[in-house]
């Protein structure tokens, strides 16, 4: 029953499956709850006999939530705000990681220390001067506020990405690069032709994480790009969700046909809409996601 040492027994397997399914349910529960809730009409919501399955599939909530969030515009801008800094991150962090992994230079340990420190330091400490700095540079409330730091390897959570690249480039055999040097390739050439192509898994991992983290970042986006009082035209889905109630009431006032009051269902629909693009991305790319993590070993020492 409990199994021998070679084969896992029934009881053990059963426990493992049961635990996995239970915890998996806990994880998916809020999402399922949201999906069912977002489909309900107001009557269903108030009816205590209806818990999961709504009496009819009501897509009206989604329509209203999407309209009040200005869904398509926000979606496009989210993609830009998450995508462009991600590309910058890939360039700058891979170069930095390569330098740390490949070359020995005086002061390397200090650089590593600073990188780790900047990971641990809460961003709030530099937030205010950075805000002032951006406004001095004239990039506040533009996308440059995200792109510029990312270009110089100081983007959002960049230390982690540098460490991932560092870890990965360390694993590339030195012989490979030395061979290319003997064959007459310069440092840049051996970086582009040898190191970069073999680092594809690291690139996928960093790209995914960077994209997701930029996408989900509401606080800094609101501060630097969206503007605290919404001065700029830039917005993202998450920021829209953050200001959902305000957006909805303003939408409600302008809408000619009397929209229903903000209720839980519409709220849920809005939440769902703002995660949906990422979920789709995740389901499509999940194979790479898991595999690349297996291969890179996101960790360092």
């Amino acid at each position, binding site marked *: 029953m409990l199994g021998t040492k070679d084969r896992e027994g029934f009881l053990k397997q059963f426990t493992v499956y049961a635990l996995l399914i239970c915890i998996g349910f806990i994880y998916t529960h809020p999402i399922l*709850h949201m999906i069912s809730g977002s489909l309900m009409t107001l009557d269903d919501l108030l009816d205590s006999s209806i818990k999961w399955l709504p009496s009819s599939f009501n897509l009206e909530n989604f329509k209203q939530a999407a309209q009040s969030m200005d869904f398509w515009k926000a979606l496009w801008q989210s993609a830009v705000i998450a995508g462009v800094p991600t590309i910058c991150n890939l360039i700058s962090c891979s170069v930095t990681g390569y330098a740390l992994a490949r070359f020995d230079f005086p002061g390397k340990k200090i650089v590593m220390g*600073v990188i780790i420190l900047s990971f641990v330091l809460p961003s*709030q400490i530099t937030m205010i*001067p950075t805000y002032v700095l951006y406004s001095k540079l004239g990039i506040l409330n533009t996308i440059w506020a995200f792109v510029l730091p990312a270009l110089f390897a100081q983007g959002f959570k960049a230390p982690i990405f540098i460490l991932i690249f560092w870890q990965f480039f*360390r694993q590339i055999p030195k012989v490979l690069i030395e061979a290319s040097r003997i064959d007459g390739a310069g440092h840049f050439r051996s970086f582009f032709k040898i190191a970069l192509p073999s680092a594809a898994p690291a690139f996928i991992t960093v790209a995914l994480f960077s994209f997701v983290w930029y996408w989900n970042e509401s606080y800094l986006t609101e501060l630097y790009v969206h503007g605290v009082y919404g001065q700029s035209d830039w917005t993202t889905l998450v920021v829209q969700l953050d200001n959902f109630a305000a957006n909805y009431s303003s939408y409600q006032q302008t809408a000619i046909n009397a929209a229903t009051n903000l209720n839980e269902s519409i709220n849920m629909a809005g939440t769902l809409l703002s*995660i949906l693009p990422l979920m789709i991305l995740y389901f499509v790319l999940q194979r790479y996601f898991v595999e690349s993590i297996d291969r890179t070993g996101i960790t360092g020492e």
Partner: protein
Amino acid sequence: MEDRKKLTRSEKKALKERMKHLKSGKLEKRYARMGYIFMIPWFIGAAVFLAYPLISSFWYALNNIRITPLGRIFTFVGHANFTQILIQDPDFLIYLVDYLTSTIISTPIIVVFALIIAMMLNMKIKGKGFFRLIFFLPVIIVSGPILGMLTAEGAGSISAVDMQAVTAAIGSVLPKIVADPVSDVFGNMITTLWYSGVQILIFLSGLQKIDKSMYEAAKIDGGSGWECFWKITLPNLRSMILLNTIYTVVFISNNSDNPIINLIQESMFSGTKEKGYGYASAMAWLYSTVVLILVGLFALLLASRKDQYEKQVKRAVKARKKEIRDHRRIERRNRRNAARIERRRAQGKITSHTTNRDDY
């Protein structure tokens, strides 16, 4: 890196001594230069977006800053901002204590939970891909407003479990000071679990790196699964545990759901005379110091370098050295005694067959 680790400290020292006499060659210099060239973007970024804000943030913290139409007016106030926060601010200290207790309690929970899940996902089970898909979901979804939304909708706690009973049970066992945060954590169980997406990933990749042959060897020697976990899995994951702990603390501290961070932002944009940028900077510095100390404490707690195996080797070496020392001493004494006997015999005091006990 690998070879370097194997050198003992004395060997390293010797190597360094030798390196001093060697001039760094042309190639090495060129390599160092290339390293700097590759690091240029980071150096610029660190100077502009890290060092400059840090220094000016400290300067801000020492000033009272008022924003007028003419620009920002700085008045130097020294440590007044700090004392004001610590003594007068009604929220900061309370939030800070709350933050500390909840972090100290929930960090181990998250790390242990992530380890358990990662180990289960690493077993031979059917539908591995499907389970991974579910358990990595938090990585995608966790973010301030969405999580806030989920919690607001009551998704944060397990509705199926009667939370009242649990809290009551906890309250009856533990004193109130301990019980309150603990039951708080239980109340937000799911939220806590949602934080562990990345940690599961890290543990999983760590688990897959452990050499399978180690387990086989242990099995042949009759080790049970339980023993394997403590003697093989845990020691191999030690660096990952440290990494995960730090990651968790940093994540909780920088989360935009954190009340202190909201407090900082509030005071940053508040129009009152005594608050504003300077006040907020001072608060951020205080908060960061606390976070850094917390991370440092966790790191110290977990980063003890000594291995069980290393300890045993060290002990054995010590015992061997002592043995050699004893051996030498005995030999020395024997020699001495023999010499003494020789002397006496030469003096004719004793004859050969009375070589006696008390000389020995």
